[in-house]
């Protein structure tokens, strides 16, 4: 049941990325085709637009959700690929544990950065 649980959340994370990541891609990489969340001109990575998104609590929370989903989905995929290549049982357990640790560290870094960016966008 544990693998079923991991896999089910992997699928749910994948769908979340489809929605949130899709919106992110449209905002930043399809800014000439659809103008989305870029109220200060069509350059999506100009500071004014970036600050506009960083200030908003809604955006900050969705970015944190997207970060979590991508890290979980990506690392589960990486774990699957590495496990399929054939590893010893102890190596498998170490791999799973290290991916959890690295994933959580990166999630914490990303979340703190998002929170700090909210402050920076408001003050700077």
């Amino acid at each position, binding site marked *: 049941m544990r693998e079923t649980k991991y896999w*089910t959340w992997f699928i749910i994370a994948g769908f979340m990325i489809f929605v949130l990541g899709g919106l992110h891609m449209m905002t930043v990489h399809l800014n000439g085709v659809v103008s989305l969340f870029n109220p200060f001109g069509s350059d999506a990575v100009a500071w004014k637009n970036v600050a506009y998104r960083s200030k908003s609590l809604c955006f900050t929370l969705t970015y944190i959700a997207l970060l979590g989903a991508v890290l979980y989905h990506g690392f589960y995929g990486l774990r699957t690929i590495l*496990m*399929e*290549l054939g590893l010893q049982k102890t190596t498998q357990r170490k791999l799973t544990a290290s991916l959890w640790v690295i994933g959580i560290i990166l999630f914490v870094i990303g979340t703190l950065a998002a929170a700090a960016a909210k402050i920076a966008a408001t003050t700077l």
Partner: protein
Amino acid sequence: MEKTQKKCDIIFYIHRYDPEKDEGPWEKQYTLQVERGMTVLDGLHKIKETQDPSLAFRFSCRMGVCGSCAMLINGKPMLACNTQILDVTEKILTVAPLPNFTIIRDLVPDLVPMFGVHASVQPHIKRSDVMEMENPTGEYFQTPRQLEEFLQFTYCIKCGACMAACPTMATDRKYPGPMPLTQAYRYNVDSRDDGGKDRNDMVATSHGVFNCHYAGECSNVCPKGVDPARAIQLMKKDLVRDYFNLNKKKVCAPVNCVSVEPKPKVAVPPFTVGK
């Protein structure tokens, strides 16, 4: 190209391997006059009879029901007896043993590990009532609709073509493979069976059913239309529904007691494969 009565010369490249002489497989070239209707198995027989008696290959029924002669024909796992040479090529035919198995000799793969994995998913009707299983008192009724849910997966002849075609089987030694997973599903959905939980514990592991990524080649190469890919995805659906407790409790077919003299029990014959 007209497919009338004609004979032509086909060049066979056959993988040979003699464990006592060779380090690894090598290709030997033969030329054979082939006519319309000759199967690859016919071709191999002709070569063995007229050109090279040392060629080793497995065959039995020669009509696509036993599953012995699966081999890699022009890069695709097929039954040699079911494949006409002129349907596959006009000039060159490469015959190799099935990949993702160990080779005993020439075109003969070692299928015993596959049978072992198949046996490990308990491919038989399991009931929680062990007394009834061991000493049956009656029959299980099954509607045609209940039969249809798993009938397709009973046509498997255990030839190993799906195992050879599966990309996960290429690297993951612990992956059960399309055939055992399909057979596990076939028994899980059988209305007469009660052993779903045990089988699910065996297949929902880190090297189990979730390592199937729907490359679909197993269904592409299956000579009997069993569609293992479909069975595996339906099994994943069942597992996820189990996780969310969405599955209704399975009502197993009740025993219909028959009032006749019970037949004497026959002893199970000794298992000889692999000895």
